[in-house]
């Protein structure tokens, strides 16, 4: 599985009339998940989220690529 770096958000059964909408939906969910958390709690949430998503992806090659992309700009 190659790492997909193109816009890729969608929701099953939902019709989008504007290309930006699904990405913006996700971003709002993401920021919303942090609402009312302390900085420390937010950090923990992020760590848990990464672990959950990484397990979902599963493929170590893809994860290695993702880690490289993420680290490049830090």
């Amino acid at each position, binding site marked *: 599985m190659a790492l997909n770096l193109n816009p890729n958000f969608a929701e099953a059964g939902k*019709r989008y009339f504007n290309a930006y909408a699904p*990405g*913006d939906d996700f*971003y709002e969910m*993401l920021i919303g998940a942090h609402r009312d958390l302390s*900085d420390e709690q*937010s950090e923990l949430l*992020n760590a848990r989220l990464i672990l959950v998503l990484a397990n979902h992806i599963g493929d170590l090659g893809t994860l290695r690529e993702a880690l490289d*992309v993420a680290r490049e700009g830090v």
Partner: protein
Amino acid sequence: MLKTYSYPKFEYRTPPEIASGQTLKVPVVVVGAGPVGLGAALDLQLHDVPVLVLDEDDTVSIGSRGVCYAKRALEILDRYGVGDAVCSKGVSWNVGRTFFREQEVYNFNLVPEPDHHRPGMVNLQQYYLEEYLAARAASRPKIELRWKNKVVSVAQTGMTVTLKVETEDGFYTVETDWLIAADGARSPIRRMLDLEIDGKVFMDRFLIADVVMKADFPSERWFWFDPPFHPGQSVLLHRQTDSVYRIDFQLGWDADPEEAKKPENVLPRIKAMLGDQREFELEWVSVYTFQCRRMGRFNHGRVLFVGDAAHQVSPFGARGANSGLQDVDNLGWKLKLVIDGKAPMALLDSYSEERIFAADENLVNSTRSTDFITPKSKVSRTFRNAVLGLAKDHAFGRALVNSGRLSVPAFLTTSSLNTPDCAPDVFAGRMVPGAPMDDAPVLDNGEQGWLLNKVGNRFFALYFADDPKSLDAATVATLSDLSCAGVAVQPLVVSPKPGAAPGGIPTLVDARGIAAQRYDAQQGTVYLLRPDQHVAARWRTLDAAKVKAAVARATCNA
């Protein structure tokens, strides 16, 4: 005083009712001659409804307000007769650049989709838009404009709305069947009727400057996140007409607006941004805060709220005047049918429902933009900066950067006025029931034109045919019959082949098949179109009973 624009002064005339002491009785009053109120008047006169417009002022919008008018608003302005004026005076821009700190992270080129009459947007100072609308309204016999006429009280009893109007010569009374409140964000009418508007103020201030550039400067939109010349905040630069540029500096909540506005504080900011060598002159400076809020419903008996009076959004995404024009686009034909007794008052509930659906979409989008531009927490800022960092190299990152989403019309897919597609009919594409119509080039009697300029103001049945001359007698009779119904439906044949349909049914040539493609049409496909150019229903075959049922549904007569 502006250097590039002189404000028109509209003439005040003493209302005859002041001397006569008589009560003026009119079918429709519009309060407020901003872009939305003038739009409302122009829409109603297209339906032959006389309108009295009252405004407390005698000129157009002062200072820095609307800039960006999007495609759907331009199409509505075409219907009102000012689309050409706005588009030829306005400037188009396609290139947008996004900067993060000292770097340009990416740029985009919004090449307009071909084969549409109007571009995605044009930029034009709001005073020009209002000037053109006011001139157009003044030229229409059914519209009476009364400047320097201020509404000071309003009461609704039974079927009548009574207004007290103040002028420099004294007071008079107006009684009207319908009141359209287009009196802006602070809406005195809303307050006088004790109606609520809910939402929130964004805890942020923006310094908005209009400057005249002395030298050439590109027609582009530049957006900076956290630039070195204005650390921690955002800055937007936008081109307008007459070499005037709009600059928005985010100031933060704690800024002192009076201090921020002083030239000695503004000039260094702009110099730092442009680099010292570019010459410019200040045209106008103000400090704004923005609200995101709307009324619980837009119709209250015989009082109908439109534009900023009904809803307000932050300006990222330019949704204020754009959505206000869509309000009156939606309202005009409905009010006409109710006035004529051809539809029940309930049709006006659908005005409120549909425009609240659209207002909520606008509120969501402008809130998201504001939240991206002004992160509210440390983690939210970290995510924002991470997106900007990834945007430089990765397409998915660019898609998440949100410095304002261009205003686009709502797809009213949940509206109770729609007739849903019915099996076995299957359609591809975007033109679902509730969709705002896509444009397409067409030939009308050999002349190049646009589909959207051929429909609107009343219901249309668009009938797609492979060859207009081949329409059989039954089809011609069914189509012709529709135009005689209580709520008339104008038939219009669209065909790739030239020629006239029998029975004098108007025919458009879709020479390159673009209309057929955008509407996923085949021989015999029928679209029922609302007077505001939204799709009401569609079928693969023509069936008079189905069309009539769909018209009944779209007018609350079902």
